[in-house]
């Protein structure tokens, strides 16, 4: 829980970054149509970015005035390794999703993350990941018909083959 009377590590930098972002976006909004007319396409974006700039500016001033600090560190509490690694793994997942396909990428992602978080043996992590993935696949791919990249797994052919198998059985 955030204590508004105490400053967290990185809070001033974050507040300053928001001011910078708001200023940049206000400048961009001004570039849309300037002060051409109150009903111009740029009027609303300018009002909104102005509100962002003013609010973030006051927040920055208030943050600068805070002297009490929370007894925590940036890389130990705000962005500890577990969060950074999980985020990097999600990025990796997004990168590999298209070339390798949903099934292998998801299995790799789940196994590694469960193993990393649980530290209970690779085989156990693989087993639980395989089971979870099978459940996710069944619910979302088969029941909800969500399309996912098949990548290196000839998923369409396997599903068609399974479909034929069942339709063949019913035909007989």
């Amino acid at each position, binding site marked *: 829980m955030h204590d508004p009377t105490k400053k967290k590590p990185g809070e001033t930098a974050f507040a300053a970054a928001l001011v910078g972002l708001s200023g940049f976006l206000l400048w961009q909004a001004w570039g849309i149509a300037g002060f051409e007319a109150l009903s111009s396409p740029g009027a609303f*974006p300018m009002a909104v970015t102005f509100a962002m700039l003013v609010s973030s500016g006051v927040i920055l001033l208030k943050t600068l005035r805070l002297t009490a600090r929370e007894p925590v560190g940036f890389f130990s509490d705000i962005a500890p390794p577990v969060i950074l690694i999980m985020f990097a793994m999600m990025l990796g997942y997004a990168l590999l999703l298209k070339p390798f396909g949903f099934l292998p990428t998801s299995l790799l992602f789940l196994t590694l993350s469960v193993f990393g978080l649980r530290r209970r043996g690779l085989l156990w992590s693989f087993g639980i990941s395989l089971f979870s993935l099978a459940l996710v696949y069944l619910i979302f791919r088969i029941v909800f018909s969500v399309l996912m990249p098949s990548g290196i797994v000839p998923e369409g052919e396997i599903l068609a083959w399974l479909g034929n198998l069942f339709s063949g059985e019913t035909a007989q």
Partner: protein
Amino acid sequence: MIEALQYFTIAWFDPKLLGLVALGTFAGIYVGAIPGLSVTMAVSILISFTFAWDVYPALCLMVGIYMGGVYGGSRTAILLNIPGAPSAIATALDGYPLAQKGKAGEAIGLSTVMSFVGGFIGIGVLALAAPFVSEFALTFQPRDYMLLAILGILLVGSLSGESLLKGVFAGSLGLLIGAVGLDPLTAQERFTFGVVELWGGISFIAVMIGLFGVSEALMQLHHIDKAAVKQTIGRIVPSWGAIWKYLPLSIQTSSIGVIIGALPGTGGDIAALMAYDHAKRVTKSPDVPFGQGAQEGLVAPETANNAAVGGAFIPMLTLGIPGDAVTAIIIGALFIHGLNPGPMLMIEQPQMFWFITGALVLANIFMLIFGLTGIRLFTKIVEMPRTVLIPLILLLSIVGAYAVNNSITDVYWMLLFGAFGYLLKTYGYQVGPVILGVILSRLIDENWRRAIISDQESLGLLLRGIVTSPLSLVLLLAVLFIFFSQTPLWTGWRARRAALRASGDGI
């Protein structure tokens, strides 16, 4: 009337739709009951899978998740003192002391039945009031819509967060995200930086899953080592006597719930807290003092937060203005399904309104059934280790963001908003106003331009129009009051009043 009844019961007699309402309610209850997983997260991730569906099945799932999720949050509030959803904060005040006394089953049973009662009253008011509200809404001027939407964002920003300033920033940021892309009126590029892919704007789903799915899951990684708490729950079906005893109170608190829920920007959390306060004032001699396991303290918030669900659908369906983050997400989903919530929805597609109302009733019934059964399964799911659960949520977030447009760019946007949302939450900003801003951006922009064009580009004329129309004036005063309520003048007066009251009580 017969037509309305037909639409009302569509989901009742279609096994697929019936099953989807049941599935949604079940998922809502269980996701809501897992500490750290909110109903907003469940709705945002699961809704993304329904965009390829027809609108009826999608609505069934959404309605079920919402109704179930609001109720599910009370479970962990009672058992662990960790509200599963903001609307269950007040439930923990007396629910947890009851559990500590070994009355967890009794508390869960009572809260389930009372949520059911509250839910029904909320839906009843929705069915009766919405047609009138939408007729009244037809008289709204563009400036009224603009003011109402601003009021909604400010209310969410000021009531849910630690400071109005942070709420204003978050709401404005949402409005800005909603403005990215080609201007709908002139097709001029706004914040596209010359990138053609941005012409259509930033995917609402990517923003939503990033802010509510990924950032919440990342926050939960802080508590990854906490062991799952073993649950012990006895008999949960409450006695008729207990239900009968608290029925008058539950009707009163349901009324509070439905009114608060119907106000744009205020949802189940505020309704529950106000109902709790009401119960405290009207119950002169509770069997057990409030805060120590008073059943009145459990009944009041639980009826109110479920009554607020029906209430929240009133501005959502009649004005197109969401009451909270969940209804904002549902509005976004309705847009994607080609529906346009607002007064015209009731006129052009009344079947949608009656269908939703019918599905809500079903969800409420399923909530009662699932709430009073399946305790063994419940304990198993709640005890599921976070080390498996969080990677699964992250996986579903990616799949959900990808599935809507089959676009990996949406996944990158989602990750960006996930990281940003994590930092916002860490430093005390609320992400609810962001999503409300994204949804309301177009409504405010278009209505502002309509208003100012009809007033010949004159701010003076616009202001005159506002002060001479009672509705516009009330809305403007409400907006101004939110800012005034943050000034030292108002907070000082409140503090002095509270001190006076305390000294009066002391005497």
